[in-house]
């Protein structure tokens, strides 16, 4: 579904992504792991179009999207969450979700001033999807709260909710688990598995908790120092010497992996 081909990203003198090539398979839940600073978030930014690579190409559904802007990739069916929450601070939780939906009629200036009837059906559908998503994420009690006032974990949930609002083909989740309590995290995992099984929604998730990764993902990509180190099943990857080396610079903490 997504293919990176020899991607490089430079920040000044620093090469954050270094000739990375990998594929995220359609219909799967793929894990993207690797030590801090490996370039995982930067790779997501390249896929989503938030950062343009210095070289290399990005393909989405076989189509070269390297030159497309983030909103065009979103229109094509790509959604993402941010490692550091990027909420719409002055908007309520409900508005955060509704604003993330596609609303071609309601975003037409002439419609909203002169022909308001034209967007009411669309708006109603958006409202219902948003209510459903709020229920799913157990955010009902803060639905009218400004998103800027939420806790870190709640903001993460809003991130996920926003990604779900456009009915995308693929969702990139960047450390969605950090700051969310265990119980809810378990429920989210079930939800992700359900969306994947029932709607065929593709996921790619960056996650540090390998148990969580193994619960969700049948396939993991391991990045280190800006490029793909290896890939395979969670168990295969866990045993890989090079992965242990990359994470810990030695076998000392092997037991934790």
């Amino acid at each position: 579904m997504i293919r990176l081909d020899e991607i490089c990203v430079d920040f000044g003198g620093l090469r954050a992504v270094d000739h990375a090539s990998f594929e995220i398979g359609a219909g799967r839940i793929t894990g993207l792991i690797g030590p801090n600073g490996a370039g995982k978030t930067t790779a997501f930014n390249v896929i989503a179009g938030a950062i343009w690579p210095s070289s290399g190409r990005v393909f989405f559904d076989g189509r070269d999207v390297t030159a497309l802007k983030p909103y065009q990739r979103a229109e094509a069916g790509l959604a993402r969450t941010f490692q550091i929450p990027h909420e719409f601070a002055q908007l309520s939780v409900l508005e955060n979700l509704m604003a993330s939906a596609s609303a071609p009629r309601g975003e037409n200036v002439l419609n909203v001033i002169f022909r308001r009837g034209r967007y009411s059906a669309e708006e109603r559908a958006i409202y219902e999807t948003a209510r459903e998503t709020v229920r799913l994420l157990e955010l009902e009690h803060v639905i009218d709260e400004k998103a800027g006032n939420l806790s870190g974990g709640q903001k993460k949930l809003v991130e996920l909710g926003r990604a779900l609002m456009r009915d995308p083909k693929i969702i990139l989740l960047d450390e969605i688990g950090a700051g969310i309590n265990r119980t809810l995290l378990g429920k989210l995992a079930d939800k992700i598995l359900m969306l994947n099984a029932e709607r065929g929604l593709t996921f790619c998730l960056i996650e540090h908790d390998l148990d969580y990764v193994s619960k969700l993902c049948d396939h993991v990509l391991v990045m280190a120092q800006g490029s793909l180190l290896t890939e395979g099943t969670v168990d295969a990857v866990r045993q890989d010497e090079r992965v242990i080396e990359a994470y810990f610079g030695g076998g000392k903490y092997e037991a934790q992996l």
Partner: protein
Amino acid sequence: MELTGLFFYIVSLLILGGIYALLCLALNVQWGMGGLFNAGIAGFYGVGAYTSAILTTAASGRHLGGFSMPVPMGLVGAAIVAGVTGWAVARICVRLKSDYLAMASIGIAEILRLVFVNESWLTNGSLGVSRIPRPFADFTTGRMSDVAFLGFVWVIVLLVYVATTRLYDSPWGRSLRAIRDNETSASAAGKNVEKFRVQTFVIGCAVMGIAGGLSAHYFRFLSPTATDPLLTTFLVWVMLMAGGSGNNRGAILGALSIWTIWSVTEIFTNRLPPEWATRSSFIRMLLVGLLLQVVLQRFRAGLLPEKSPPVRFRKD
């Protein structure tokens, strides 16, 4: 006599208050909803004023003109020309971050002011455009025409209020506020940030142009001093901050209250000894600045803060 004097004082206060309300509503679209820092309000206001003046005056030989159009046509022209000017600026500047946009828009307002001063064939330079007609000139005379004009201004304020409120309450406004709050995630959510910003800037500038046109018809005379940034850009920003950025009613409330205070302080500063009176506008600016500080201490988001609109769709 005293009472009629007071009555007409209030009429003139409310006419200019209405014109400021338009400017504030326009800035609220750009800054309150869109987060676009327009520090060149005076320029777009001036473009509207000159457009409407030139379109509606009779031939004079001193400046471009002789179109003698009716006042409403002049105002439509003001909105269009100011809107197109805004569009040209937006095409170049919307990608700028807000502080750079502020600098760019100050520069553009200054360029426009130089055009008003120097292009005599167009504007009659610093001598200005005179004999600008008022609406309803055929059946109102003298001071009654002020009262008629008051009604005219506030009908326009009402129309603009309805339009900007519809914008605010709509998915368009919601997406725009989302872009204002976080451009990166708004574009990740499929919003074409540049398109929204251009639309926002154009709508705001068009309304600023209408406000400028109205001021030309009110004073019946227009010279480049009308585009003084102190009386337009600075005051309008103070009004919106005090009234409540992101709230249309706050914008109107801020315009009326700050304009009232500004006007009333004139009564006092005019009684100051002459060596002080010449500096009165700076003293008043200082006072208004202090007042804004006090308001913002008490009400951080202005008198009427931004509020999420109700979701609107037909419930059936």
